[in-house]
């Protein structure tokens, strides 16, 4: 199975889509890491380095968008959603400007750089902004498709990308629909709703559950906002228990969004796999995933616990 970091897929797609669409790219001194450097090499006249000034970069992007030109803005998630939250909220979100924020190095898979650079709060921050679309792609095909959708859909987008290579979960014939989740595996006992990096681990967990006779449905919830409520209602009704899996805090992210929706639509147990209200630390990615419980085994345990809850 092919493996590629979603930031890499983003960089490739950006350079490719540059032929088809007339957008400009802004970065804050991280083009080599965010992979916007690939675009920069191909279209130097459409690339603008803002230096290390993320707040200003968001405001500049807003100004560009008011003139009818589309800016794609990249930096690390920590410095986009974190550092520049308020410019995004007030200068991009409030006037609903056509700015595409593609934030890389999201979550704990940043690895050795440690807690200051591991943004586990960005989904929560971005999805509270009215009108903001939030997408967290699981693999390269989804990343490219999400980017093209963002470029052709009016309004502010936040696309969350990772540093660490992930295996493909979709084939080449993949078709992305904004706000419509992908059913990756049918199941009847429990549903695992995963986003981004955790999607392939959700599939792995479903395999393990199958071995113990548990039928787990797996949903790839690439669009965290607007959330696919229909798929959640069906999952709650048909499987009666849900586990969410995300490389993000369990507070306010996918788990929060799913809990909010399920509580309104059809209350069933919802257990969450994610960062448990904690900061990360330095370490290699496998060690970090193990330490913070972002594993298929953890998903299996939560799935069994959720099933037990519905029986009690």
């Amino acid at each position, binding site marked *: 199975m092919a493996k590629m970091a979603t930031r890499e897929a983003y960089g490739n797609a950006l350079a490719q889509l540059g032929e088809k669409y007339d957008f*400009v790219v802004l970065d804050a001194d991280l083009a080599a890491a965010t992979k916007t450097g690939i675009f920069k090499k191909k279209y130097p006249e*459409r690339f*603008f380095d*803002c*230096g290390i*000034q993320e*707040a*200003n*970069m*968001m*405001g*500049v*992007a*807003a*100004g*560009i*968008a*008011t*003139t*009818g*030109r589309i*800016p794609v803005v990249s930096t690390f998630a920590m410095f986009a959603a974190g550092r520049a939250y*308020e*410019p995004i909220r*007030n*200068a991009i979100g*409030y*006037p*609903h400007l056509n700015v595409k924020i593609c934030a890389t190095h999201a979550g704990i898979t940043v690895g050795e750089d440690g807690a200051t650079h591991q943004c586990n709060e960005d989904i929560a921050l971005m999805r509270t902004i009215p009108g903001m679309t939030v997408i967290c792609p699981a693999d390269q095909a989804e990343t490219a498709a999400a980017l093209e959708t963002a470029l052709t859909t009016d309004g502010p987008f936040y696309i969350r990308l990772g540093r660490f290579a992930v295996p493909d979960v979709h084939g080449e014939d993949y078709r992305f629909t904004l706000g419509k989740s992908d059913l990756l595996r049918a199941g009847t006992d429990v549903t695992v709703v995963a986003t981004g990096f955790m999607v392939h681990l959700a599939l792995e967990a479903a395999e393990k559950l199958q071995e113990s006779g548990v039928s787990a449905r797996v949903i790839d919830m690439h669009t965290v906002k607007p959330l696919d409520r229909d798929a959640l209602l069906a999952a709650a009704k048909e499987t009666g228990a849900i586990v969410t899996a995300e490389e993000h805090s369990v507070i306010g992210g996918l788990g929060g969004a799913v809990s909010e929706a399920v509580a309104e639509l059809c209350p069933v147990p919802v257990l969450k796999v994610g960062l448990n209200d904690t900061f990360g630390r330095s370490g290699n990615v496998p060690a970090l995933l193990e330490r913070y419980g972002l594993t298929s085994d953890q998903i299996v345990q939560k799935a069994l616990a959720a099933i037990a809850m519905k029986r009690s």
Partner: protein
Amino acid sequence: MEKSKLSQLKKTATNVRIGIIESVHSAKSGHPGGSLSIADILTYLYFEEMHIDPADPKAPGRDRLVLSKGHAAPALYSVLAERGYLPKSDLLTLRKIDSYLQGHPDMKHTPGVDMTTGSLGLGISAACGMALSAKIGNEPYRTYAILGDGESEEGQVWEALMFASHYHLDNLCVILDWNGLQIDGPVEQVMNNTPYAEKFASFGYEVVSVDAHDFEQLEKAFAKARQTKGRPTAIIAKSVKGKGVSFMENQVGWHGAAPNDEQYEQAMAELTAALKA
């Protein structure tokens, strides 16, 4: 400047000030001091300097104005009303529920407002984006941004100023409203960020210092900005906060307070007298 033009500009600016007082009085809240200090600058921009058409407020080739010190919204709304973008009677709906005249400028719902502002430091960045976009598209429109002196304590302001200079945005003209006062007191006491001319010069700007209430100086400064190539221009405009209403002039307390009925009558009497002078 011709005498008749000068007296017309003065008259228009006084009408803009009347609109500020009427709207803030009607709203029972708002920011009269920093609105009155930029009334002449906005009047010059909207009546002389900018290439705009009130009948087509979203024309792609128009000049842009970003009120980075967004709390001076009453001044912007008043000049827009004076220029014909909106009915003057709407000024009395300022800050009221269902009004399109929000406490701080909202580009989505107010004709003539080019950028949503209010959180200090954001507008100047957006102005840089507009100017950069004009450069990318090789379009001739110009972008003007009005900064507050207190606002310039925000770090983002200097990020943006650095950006404009780095990208040689000579189509950007920054006007610093140097009224010397902010909410907690004189700027020099709250967080001294002077000297301005030296700072802008060191950031690579063409710097012009003017009296913010002198139309002839403003005319020369904006002409200079238009002629300047290769770098942005900063007009350091020394102003009087509360200008035009005697009891508001240079008073910290009028940063964000509305006049009561008695004060309103006095302010209106002064401005009406100025109109007739």
